[in-house]
């Protein structure tokens, strides 16, 4: 067994709009789409054209710079449209789904009898590889690398995040098979983190994994936090990570031979009228999936993912490849009179300049207000309260802003991903968009290192 890890820094932002029930609706739509923008850094090269018939698992496009990384159709049917934007950039690949889904058969197989190379090829061929992410850089893993370890976080500590244990236990066999497969991909360890104090007995008996119990507030569930505490990344090293829905897809691939992206999606947030799960394949039409759950006319913001790291999406878009949570929160509508002096009981704040500290368990109904204007860095010590890594966050951000590669390396750019800075961004007095800065820093490193 592994270790107990305590995360002392961080904060759980308590929001209204938690899941109300475990009810699951099975949903489908007539059109599905795969959005290349879900895959950061990938330049798509089409393998199909409009009019082609595809099965679930047929490659739609691949990455121009890593040809073996394929992005496959989540459903079977006819490719009806490749939507392009400026400079012919591919925005959406739309598929008109068959009534009865047909899967491409990759053959059921048992990873415990396979070697690493075979597991890797199986994932690459079937379209499951994009679930394997790498650090540094927080992009889809380069299959030619030899990762020093693989990290799995079995829980999310983000605001309103669904309980992933619930999903794991529903498909335990798939989960176990996927972990066995992961163990084949690295000569190092597979580190699996569970929420401190939760029942992790279901993980016993899987060979090649090490289980860690992680206690504390968000970002305890972030895999980046866990990597940093368990075995931090040094220059030149790579680690891979896979999230729980990705593992379940991989597990199904080995069990059934099908690329099956179905996942439980939690609809959460104060502006979501029905807060429960639906089960659907990646790329389902959101207008269909959110029927009776979200009112497009309400003007609320729809987010694919959680409020900290998710991307704004819209009612007429499609479910993202990595999304297993949809959150809706009200948009900011009114200016607030004399907000700098008002008691602000409805405002979340890490600083005690508002009187929220008197009601620590209050659940807030927060809107999308920036609550101020962007400024230069003024306050210090603020990020450090929510940033549990042994890294100086503000200094790293400044190194990125001045594009000082050596300083970025020295200050730990290889260990971070944008999501690790999400809380810093939330608590920042100067309203600095640190996630975007970190992303630009990582992109710069990719350029410099290639």
């Amino acid at each position, binding site marked *: 067994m592994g270790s107990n890890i305590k995360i002392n820094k961080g904060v759980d932002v308590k929001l209204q709009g938690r899941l109300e029930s475990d009810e699951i609706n099975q949903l489908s739509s007539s059109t599905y789409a795969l959005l290349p923008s879900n895959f950061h850094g990938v330049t798509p090269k089409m393998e199909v054209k409009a009019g082609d018939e595809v099965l679930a698992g047929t490659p739609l496009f691949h990455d121009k710079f890593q040809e073996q990384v394929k992005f496959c159709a989540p459903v079977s049917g006819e490719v009806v449209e490749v939507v392009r934007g400026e400079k012919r950039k591919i925005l959406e690949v739309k598929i008109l789904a068959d009534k009865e889904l047909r899967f491409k058969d990759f053959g059921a197989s048992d990873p415990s009898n396979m070697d690493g190379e075979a597991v890797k090829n199986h994932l690459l061929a079937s379209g499951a590889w994009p679930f394997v992410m790498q650090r540094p850089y927080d992009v889809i893993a380069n299959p030619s690398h030899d990762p020093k370890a693989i990290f799995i976080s079995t829980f999310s500590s983000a605001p309103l995040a669904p309980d992933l244990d619930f999903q794991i236990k529903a498909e335990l066999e798939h989960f176990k098979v996927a972990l066995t497969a992961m163990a084949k991909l690295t000569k190092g360890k597979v580190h699996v983190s569970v929420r401190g104090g939760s029942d992790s007995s279901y993980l016993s008996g899987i060979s090649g994994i090490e289980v860690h119990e992680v206690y504390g507030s968000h970002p305890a569930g972030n895999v980046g936090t866990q990597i940093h505490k368990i075995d931090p990344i040094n220059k030149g090293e790579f680690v891979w990570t896979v999230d729980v829905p990705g593992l379940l897809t991989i597990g199904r691939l080995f069990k059934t031979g099908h690329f099956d992206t179905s996942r439980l999606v939690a609809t959460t947030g104060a502006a979501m009228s029905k807060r429960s799960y639906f089960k659907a394949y990646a790329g389902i039409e959101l207008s269909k999936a959110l029927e009776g759950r979200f009112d497009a006319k309400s003007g609320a913001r729809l987010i694919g993912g959680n409020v900290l790291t998710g991307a704004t999406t819209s009612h007429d878009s499609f479910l993202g490849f990595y999304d297993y949570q949809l959150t809706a929160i009200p948009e900011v509508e009114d200016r607030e009179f004399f907000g700098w002096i008002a008691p602000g009981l409805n405002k979340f704040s890490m600083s005690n300049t*508002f009187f929220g500290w008197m009601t620590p368990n209050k659940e807030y109904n927060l809107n999308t207000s920036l609550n101020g204007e962007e400024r230069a860095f003024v306050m210090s*010590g603020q990020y450090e309260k929510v940033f549990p890594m042994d890294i100086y966050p503000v200094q790293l951000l400044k190194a990125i802003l001045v594009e000082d590669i050596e300083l970025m390396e020295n200050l730990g750019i290889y260990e971070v991903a944008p999501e690790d800075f999400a809380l810093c961004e*939330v608590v920042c007095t100067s309203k600095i968009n640190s996630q975007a800065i970190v992303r630009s820093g990582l992109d710069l490193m990719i350029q410099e290192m290639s």
Partner: protein
Amino acid sequence: MKFLQNIVEKLEPQFEKGGKFEKLWPLFDGFATFAFVPKHPTSKGAHIRDGVDLKRTMITVVIAMIPCLIFGIWNTGHQHFLAQGMYAGLGDGVLEKFFFGAWRVLPLVVVSYAVGLGVEFVFCIIKRHSIQEGFLVSGMLIPLCMPVDVPLWMVAVATIFAVVIGKEVFGGTGMNILNPALTARAFLFFAYPTKMSGNSVWIADSENLRANVDGFSGATALGDLASTVGIDKTSETATAVMSSFGNDGFYSMYNSFMGFIPGSIGETSALACLIGALILIGSGIGSWKIMFSAVVGGLTMAGIFNLAGANAFMDLNALHQLLIGGFMFGVVFMATDPVSAAHTETGKWIYGFFVGFFGIMIRVFNPAYPEGMMMSILFMNVMAPLIDHYVLQANIKKRQKRMVIQTA
């Protein structure tokens, strides 16, 4: 408030790009965002944000200074009347003292804000950025760290110097190296020393009082103590000064703590500073690490002096040292300025310690600069980036060492 909001929204297009008053956008934006938190939505990254912004932060600091301001107003009147033997009791003539104090202090506050904000507006319009809130605090700090008899035009000149040279040339709030309020004070201290030190500026109308009141000294605790440096501590002068620091003396521990002594307007009351410190620490804006380590640093230096005991000044009780002069005010409001202080948490311990340590050292060793705190904080402002540099180097070394172990 809907009514006001409508006005703002109606006027807005005229100040936006292409509008009639495009150039005055920072001015409009400054007033509009002062009245209303703007409805800017989050566009990148996290969709929800903390309620705090720079306006709220700065206003909280100003609120923390209000006890010092109110006490300073009263004490200005108190010292003025006390010197003439009027209303000697603390409870006597409270209203008169307040009125007199307000009459002398508020003009300083008004001049500081009007001039400082005026300069800020000009810079914002030239450089086309929105008004930054840093001056809200500096504008209050500047009058509070001045002697009450300082002429208004000097405050205006010092404020212009502080905002332009201390802040705007570096790029505005957040970019400055030195604390702007102390820059203003240091400017006056060196440019017009007769108006910033000596025995004629600390009590309102000192010159008049000296002419008309027998035995008027007008000195501060530090001024009196400085006069004991270089003379035998058993001499008559030295013992007379030291007796005033006894339990019944004018500068007794109690009087120094409460602030019933002459000095810069806002600095005399350690109690008011402590209330401010509580607000700053409670709200999470001021660093308790800096305040705590500065007090430790001050006590350490004063303790060393106690042991050395070369003159009467060194013999002063270590705790008493911290209660007189600008020590408490500097520690609570000046040293904790997040921009000019050390930025790393480890660095704050070191920075704070030396602020206190050098503050006491300068005031005792160099009687020409009775206010060691100003020098000490400015010196440590300059040193703060160096401290941060070494703290960062330690982190970098740790990371490099880890890499070597891994690859070895």
